[in-house]
């Protein structure tokens, strides 16, 4: 099931993702698979996740030949920091025993600031956590209140400082920009506070109002007005320029690191079509061609596991066209962009040839560069990567027809 030339992408190892679906309070913008820990749900999780690992290990790749051993493990959520270090240890132990891992996999963990205590930090370090992603979201009290977060700005600052002091290799701060009414000046203040704390990594997302969330209801009732797109675009550009000046280099639209070794080693696997195995409710897995995903809700997921069934909700087999499209869409989100030769070899598509006029226009507008080997988005281009992915064709105009005509013509 290996795609030809994946090694050229530089992400060989498999990634393992473990979804921890609890949050003590659900944020009004959140559309992840989350629930509150009450009602015995929190207690049901550990046996179920261990059960899933036990089920999965018999045939992790569902019939496909296993790819390379896993070299990253990421606990996301939800709020993985709601698990005690010894619970995490149990899960890690099961993973190491049952699945194919390298000796010391890179380990990432998401945590909410209010859970960051010296005791837990010590525990996480002991377990080998190298990347701690702190769900700060804002350093501004009004912003935190709007986002429905439980921590205060002071707690957030404190959490970053303590995590750094504890010697975690990479401390990352998550921030959300483009809150309603946010001005460039107020967003710059957030960035100032974040950088003054000197974490090695930052993730900056724009607020998006997802269907089905309380924010979506508020928007429908006119009680929430999203920042207009141009203003959002301005904030994205501000983020990139401001952070770059302070040594935070972007490697993806929303991700910044002070040095390459502080980048997430796990997330790029998603962007580069590396294989990954997802465990826990709603987690997605990918083997290079097939993607499948677990039941979204904790109850049904745990129940399937209890019955000895793999808790997969559905799967899809990506067509060559879909693989090509995903690689285009994801590649344009990264600073490295798309390596053209490899892309042509993998998908049989010469992106530049199929899009001469568009590439030239995007180049003129300062959104995309083509240095011969790679199509790379500029900083301004990263901010509109989705739009670029929409406008680039995967087939030259009329290429299909002329190819057919060519093959049947001489014989006739």
């Amino acid at each position: 099931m290996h795609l030809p030339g994946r090694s050229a992408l530089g992400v060989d190892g498999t990634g393992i993702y473990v979804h921890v679906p609890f949050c003590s309070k659900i944020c009004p913008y959140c559309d992840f698979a989350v629930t509150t820990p009450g009602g015995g749900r929190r207690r049901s999780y550990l046996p179920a996740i261990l059960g899933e690992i036990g089920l999965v290990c018999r045939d992790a790749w569902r019939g496909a030949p296993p790819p390379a051993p896993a070299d990253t493990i990421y606990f996301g959520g939800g709020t993985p920091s709601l698990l005690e270090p010894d619970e995490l240890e149990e899960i890690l132990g099961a993973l190491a025993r049952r699945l194919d891992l390298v000796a010391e996999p890179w380990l990432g963990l998401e945590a909410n600031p209010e859970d960051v205590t010296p005791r837990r930090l010590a525990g996480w370090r002991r377990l080998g956590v190298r990347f701690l992603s702190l769900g700060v979201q804002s350093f501004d009290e009004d912003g935190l209140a709007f986002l429905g977060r439980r921590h205060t700005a002071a707690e957030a600052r404190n959490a970053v400082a303590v995590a750094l002091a504890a010697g975690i290799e990479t401390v990352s701060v998550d921030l959300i920009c483009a809150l309603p009414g946010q001005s460039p000046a107020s967003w710059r203040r957030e960035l100032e506070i974040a950088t003054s704390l000197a974490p090695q990594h930052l993730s900056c997302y724009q607020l998006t109002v997802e269907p089905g969330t309380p924010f979506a209801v508020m928007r429908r009732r006119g009680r929430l007005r999203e920042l207009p797109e141009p203003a959002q675009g301005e904030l994205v550009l501000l983020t990139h320029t401001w952070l770059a000046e302070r040594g935070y280099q972007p490697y993806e639209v929303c991700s910044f690191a002070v040095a390459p070794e502080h980048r997430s080693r796990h997330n790029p696997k998603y962007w580069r079509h590396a294989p990954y195995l997802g465990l826990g409710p709603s987690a997605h897995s990918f083997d290079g061609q097939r993607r499948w995903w677990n039941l979204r809700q904790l109850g049904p997921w745990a129940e399937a596991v209890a019955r000895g069934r793999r808790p997969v909700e559905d799967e899809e087999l990506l067509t060559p066209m879909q693989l090509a499209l995903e690689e285009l869409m994801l590649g344009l989100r990264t600073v490295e962009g798309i390596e053209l030769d490899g892309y042509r070899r993998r998908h049989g598509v010469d992106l530049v040839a199929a899009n001469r006029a568009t590439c030239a226009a995007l180049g003129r507008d300062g959104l995309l560069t083509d240095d011969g080997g790679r199509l790379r988005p500029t900083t301004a281009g990263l901010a509109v990567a989705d739009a670029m992915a929409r406008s680039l064709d995967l087939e030259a105009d009329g290429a299909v027809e002329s190819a057919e005509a060519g093959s049947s013509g001489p014989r006739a």
Partner: protein
Amino acid sequence: MHQIRNFCIIAHIDHGKSTLADRLIQRCGGVADRDFRDQILDSMELERERGITIKSNSVTLDYQAQDGKTYQLNLIDTPGHVDFSHEVRRSLMSCEGALLLVDASQGVEAQTVANLYLALEYDLEVVPVINKIDLPAADIERAREEISEDLGLDPYEAVLASAKLGQGIDEILEAIVQRLPAPEGDPEAPLQALIFDAQYDSYRGVVLLCRVRQGALRAGQTVRLMHTGKEYDVEEVGLLRLKKDKRNELAAGAVGYAIAGIKTVRDIAIGDTVTDASQPVDTPLPGYKEAKPVVFSSIYPVSTEEYEDLGKALDKLALNDAALTYDKDSSSALGFGYRCGFLGLLHLDVVQERLRREYDLSLILSAPSVRYRVRLSSGEELKVDNPSLFPDPSEVESATEPYIKASVMMPERYIGVVMELCRERRGLNTTFHYLAQGRVELTSEMPLAEVLFDFYDRLKSVTQGYGSFDYEVLDYRPTELVKVDILVNGDPVDALAQLVHRDKARQRALHYCERLAETIPKQQFKIAVQGAIGGTIIARTTINPFRKDVTARCYGGDITRKRKLLEKQREGKKRMKRVGSIEIPQSAFVAVLKTDVD
């Protein structure tokens, strides 16, 4: 015959007609409790969802009155919206009386007055009913005063009711029996029956709803429809209970149905007179004016493959909607479609909604237009409702457009803003008079075209929802007609062309340019969107290159969702309509052409 009462329920929209009909039906045991649902006569899905009545509905009830006798009540629930006033007119023709409802919290509104006048035109006895007295905002005294001053009826004859809670129902039934006249007519005379409505039934064909004036209508009889001259054999007659109740005959005074092997509603004319072919009467009953379409729009399927389905769907709708007209049409931007005629914007909206819903079609509608009369230098006169058929301006000598008499009722404090709105809409001879309770009725002679564009919304907003609107078509009057083209990078988009008054051309063109500029996705180059009359540019906007929608977050391994969104957007791009060098997505047409409907 003395024990028959034929009446309809009329009122302004939403004053509770269908709810009152429910109570009357229930009180007369017309429906078993387990079969009952609110607004039971509103059977169309669309009626139920919107809570409005679109078609009149008849039902026959048996009422045991306080005098000990059992009366046969033929009730017709009518729609309140002005677009369907022809339905009210038809219903009135078959009745001797009407219940005129007034919402106690709203008072007399524009269609209350309009419907009362209609009832008086047909010489009906009117019983006013003050409804919704249970509402906290109900003001019975005010309603009484308005009934007296604005309608000229005796306020102390008004029955107080709450259709919702079932209060006053017995009083209403007694008033029907005591105050409305019984029908008259000689049962022995030759047959004379009025067709006041028709339904299409996929098994039985057309079901005629008739009011027998004299003689009797029987199964087995050969009848002639006097207006069309066609003859049919009557297969079945009966009363319309909630289900058909088959009878041997419908005698003079009766209201009921007849089935006579008629294929489509197009084969008959509402208002026609049915007579016995072997013993015909000399003169038909006074006829009824045909409901003529006054608003026109082209309907295109989003995907060209659906063109045929659209045609079939329109054929089917037309079986039961005699007012809907349609002819083949085509646009270079949108492909093949149909030019359709409607009674008004609500009718248009109902038709398109049914096409979408019942036939699962995705549609684009061109801007609604009225029908202009254009006189050419050659002396020839054309009727033009489709901008693409507008002749070369150099050949046009003059043009006329339909005018309406608009009437708006509102609290006095809005008179200024409404007058201003009328002036803006080229209203002439705007006058007003004071009604009871500090309200005014304003009338204005206004081009119908002005109502088609954003009028309801504006009226609602300037009167903060207190203004109510009614109109009737008056006549054709001279106009300065121009055709406005919308150009994208210099190429005209035929589907966006419009016929408008010269004074409105610039404003309208700008509106369209701006909406289009908002919805055409930015491309790699600058796009000019212009409005033009002939070669003269009268409005312009530009779309700056490339749409800067910010890149959305991408979290975790769920790439599938993000890819699907992208696939959908790219699919949309494929379906764009090419205009010159620019591709315009369907969604842009939809957004630009979105009509506002009351």
